[in-house]
């Protein structure tokens, strides 16, 4: 019974969300003002700093890939990479991208390659700037630590699926004095990242990179959709809370 309700409500939610997404694209043309997020303000500066120093930005895409239930979260990291890739291709300063899942390796390479193609500089694209470090979280974190300490990137960007092993990467970054912009969806990585990093993109904020960095209409639209859904959820919770309290037991 409840399951049926859940399914119907879920379906309704998805339909509504799709509609808002479509409406949102129109609304996005008005270039709405978005809440300021320090992480996204810091990132463009980092890219140019990487260009100046001739060093590369390190982008960690987390420990998961596409094809599992973590796909959307990984895509959020890939979107962030996409926003950085354009600038990187334009300036021929590819970021060092590390992944812990071969599917993410393929995706990240593809994103970089397409950015280089867009800028007519396919020859400048080096698939080796995306590296498969290890196949599981902890070895991955260890490998990235090694990379951070011996290859000295200019800054450390993390976005994707992490666990508490993210602390290893962030601590090494903090020790090296990198500016660190990190995003995660889960509580454990967020809590261990918070003390070490300069800018923390908490949960939902990590999914907003395309809207903040590139102002892509479809991404801005999805923020709009998220906000509309957010207020719907808030109203639902409020209504049912009062109903629950007021209803005679």
């Amino acid at each position, binding site marked *: 019974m409840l399951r049926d309700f859940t*399914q119907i409500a879920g*379906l309704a939610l998805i339909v509504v*969300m799709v509609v808002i997404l479509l409406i949102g694209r129109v609304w996005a043309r008005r270039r709405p003002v978005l809440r300021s997020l320090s992480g996204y303000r810091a990132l463009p500066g980092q890219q140019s700093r990487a260009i100046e120093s001739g060093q590369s930005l390190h982008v960690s895409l987390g420990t998961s890939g596409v094809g599992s239930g973590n796909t959307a979260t990984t*895509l959020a990291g890939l*979107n962030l990479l996409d926003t950085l890739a354009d600038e990187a291709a334009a300036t021929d300063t590819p970021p060092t991208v590390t992944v812990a899942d*071969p599917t993410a390796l393929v*995706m990240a390479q593809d994103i970089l390659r397409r950015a280089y193609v867009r800028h007519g500089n396919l020859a400048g694209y080096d698939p080796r700037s995306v590296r498969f470090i290890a196949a599981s979280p*902890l070895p991955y974190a260890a490998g990235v630590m090694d990379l951070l300490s011996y290859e000295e990137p200019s800054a450390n960007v993390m976005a994707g699926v992490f666990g508490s092993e993210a602390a*290893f990467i962030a601590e090494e970054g903090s020790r090296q004095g990198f500016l660190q912009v990190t995003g995660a969806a889960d509580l454990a990585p967020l809590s261990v990242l918070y003390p070490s990093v300069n800018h923390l993109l908490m949960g939902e904020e990590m999914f907003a990179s395309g809207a903040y960095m590139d102002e892509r209409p479809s*991404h801005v639209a999805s923020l709009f959709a998220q906000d509309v859904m957010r207020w719907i959820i808030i109203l639902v919770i409020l209504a049912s809370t009062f109903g629950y309290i007021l209803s005679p037991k």
Partner: protein
Amino acid sequence: MKRFLPLLVTMIVGWVTLLTYFLPGLDTVRYPFIEVAMIVVAFSMLLGFVNIFYVHATRIVRRRPGAFYSLVLLVSLVLVAAVSFAEGLIRGGLSLFSPSVAQDVVQAGVAGGWMTAVYQYILIPIQSSLAALLPFLLAFAAYRTLRMRSTSGKAAGAVFLITAIVVLLGQVPLFNLPLVAGLREWIIRVWAMGGVRGILLGVALGITATALRVLIGADRPTSE
């Protein structure tokens, strides 16, 4: 066509997979799709293996810095893979592809005697020791939480620290302080839970929006 085919595949497969959650009786439809995805992911491991092998072999051949470590990595890579495959293949023998022994072969390959030894004496020690370094790093990070933070950041950091302190103290039966233990329980059950749910709900919204954006073709992660 070459451009839109992947997007088309994504959209079709995505919608079918998604709708199976919300249309009654379609659960079984989802499984073959995921089954195929699992196989593709398994193949991708081969890609990962080749990639890491290539990268480190290059490093060795070119005598780049860290070549020695790359050698260690490759040796470990090849040895462990060899042990696992050898154990499975030996167990399977000529009847490797007969279903009757398949489970035994899998057991041998995954957790055969030597494989278990490798796991127990090499992988677990290193990996859990590495994880055991975490408290040191966390302690140092916590110690410096407030460093380089703005005023508002310091306020947030103070909330973070105070919460952590209460939870830490309440977590252990050290002083037998019922008050602190009760406070901890309350914080986790009520105060922290609010934040946790806020984040989880937000992430769920973010995931849904990100996914639907792709599924309606507004965002194309796999094609230009």
